[in-house]
């Protein structure tokens, strides 16, 4: 049995047919070709499948596709502004926070969620903000650097826009 759902992903309205057991992660990857969200554990532990749903950071492996009906979703593919990288993406590249890269999309979504709500987080708040995301390569130091760099760049970008 398939059910029709309507939702917005990265600003685009979509209508899809899903089974009751389809996870949001499968819908994004298999049906919409948005493979940036990764499956690392399938149990909500690693955060590699993180997306932002209705302004809230969620692990898409623990959300059923049916629950996404009527929602607005941002995935890693929707973070870029046109052809330009987002400051968070630039900062991850510049800080050397990307190694194997498998956790990176989830880390960037968690960073975006954090900085959208708290533009100037302390180190402790950054660690808390990324506590749902596991990285096995970096040891996290460079990732925390990247979040700090992102916050700084976004703030100066904001003040330029306001000037």
């Amino acid at each position, binding site marked *: 049995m398939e059910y029709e759902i309507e939702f917005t992903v990265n600003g685009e309205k979509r209508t899809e047919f899903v089974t009751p057991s389809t996870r949001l992660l499968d819908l994004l990857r298999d049906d919409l070709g948005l493979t*940036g*969200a*990764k499956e690392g554990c399938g149990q909500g532990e690693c955060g*590699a499948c993180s997306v932002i749903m209705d302004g809230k950071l969620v692990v898409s492996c623990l959300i059923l596709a049916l629950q996404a009906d009527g929602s607005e979703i941002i995935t*890693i593919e929707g973070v870029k502004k046109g052809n330009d*990288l987002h400051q968070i993406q630039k900062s991850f590249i510049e800080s050397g926070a990307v190694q*194997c890269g498998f*956790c990176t999309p989830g880390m960037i979504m968690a960073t975006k969620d954090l900085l959208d709500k708290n533009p100037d987080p302390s180190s402790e708040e950054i660690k808390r903000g990324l506590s749902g995301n596991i990285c*096995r390569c970096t040891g996290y130091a460079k990732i925390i650097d990247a979040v700090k760099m992102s916050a700084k760049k976004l703030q100066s970008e904001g003040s330029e826009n306001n000037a």
Partner: protein
Amino acid sequence: MLKNPHEYVGHDVIKVDAESKTTGEAVYPNDIYFDDMLYARVKRATHPHAYLKKLDISKAEAVPDVVTVITAEDYPDLNNFGLILKDQPVLVGIDEKMRFMGDALAIVVAETREAARKGVSLIETEVEELEVISNPIRAMEEDSPIIHKEKNMYDSNIPKRNIARSNNLIKGDIDKGFAEADLIVENEYTTQHLEQLPLQNESGVGYYDSIDDQIKLWVASQWIHDSQADIAQSLGVDKDKVRIIQPAIGGAFGKKEDISVHIHLALATLETGKPVKMAYSREESMIAQSKRHPLIIKMKTGVKNNGKLTALEVEVIGDTGAYASSGPAVIHKGLFHSTGPYEIENIKGKSYTVYTNNTYGGAMRGFGATQMGFAYDSQMDIIAHKLGMDPLEFRYKNAFEKGSETATGQILNRSVNVKETLAEAKEMMEDKEGQK
């Protein structure tokens, strides 16, 4: 053309693939899709040490959307695979042994992941259970069951059982070394299994290209050419009939040195003529793929009252689990690193790579040397304490320097900075103390 190295050395360099990894565009094995792609899943062992007596796949075959179920019966001529010893079966056949919970009994290929999963859950087995050996000490005892029947896999010079390989380490004269010692300290250290846990599980896509008569595999591998050769010999085809196309690797840390989905994907695509995807769950990855070897390390160290080490007798017993994988090399290397960065004139060492029914041990960061550090540096602290010496000073006294001879007889003639490192660490520690 080569670029000027001065543009890179000493400068921050942006990784070539960093951008694609921040946008989600980088393609990892599980991100590859074909239009008419099938999904495969493996039925794993139902007991850690048992003969497979009966395998009933009829219920799995009856699941809607299941295309085929492949067993050893379909491919009786497959050869075993393995990085050092060819001891691991692609599929366990009837009257053959399952040796750990990760052994493959059947491959279910289906139109959907759900159907493949359901098919696997409906396969039934009958087994003849054997004693499960979870401890390498038990494995070496005379009345222990033999895990691998094939005789050539064992070191015939050793009277003990289940030993895949043994190695020796001899330097100087051990008796003289202990005779010179004022104090002899004996201890046993044990380390545990460790999971490498790369974030990307074993996964990939296989496609038999009938035009090129070639099996194409998109799988992340650390030993791409060794894997190609091993897959080819296992299938009994020429190497040029197997092509591995390396996508982005989502971490490995040694765990992706071994064959995982490769040969099963090859069989599934040969059988169906369609592209097939396989992705381990995290649980399956933990059960079926390698771990860091747990070691039992027995050390007997001789030392003079002035703090000079004179002798080391060492025994390393490594649990390589059901299959050798990199085990013989890892445990061998552990033995060779048994002094750590300290010079000892007289050494006698022996290592055993032992089969058990645990998940097999393979490569992980440090490749055997890491486990030894726990033993030799614990031993250094304990000896320093017994001598009433400062542990740092004791280490400094015995540390490698230019001209030192290692346990394997290598003369270190350049870039030996152990003492400088110790001195700098001491300074940093004192600075920190001063700040308190």
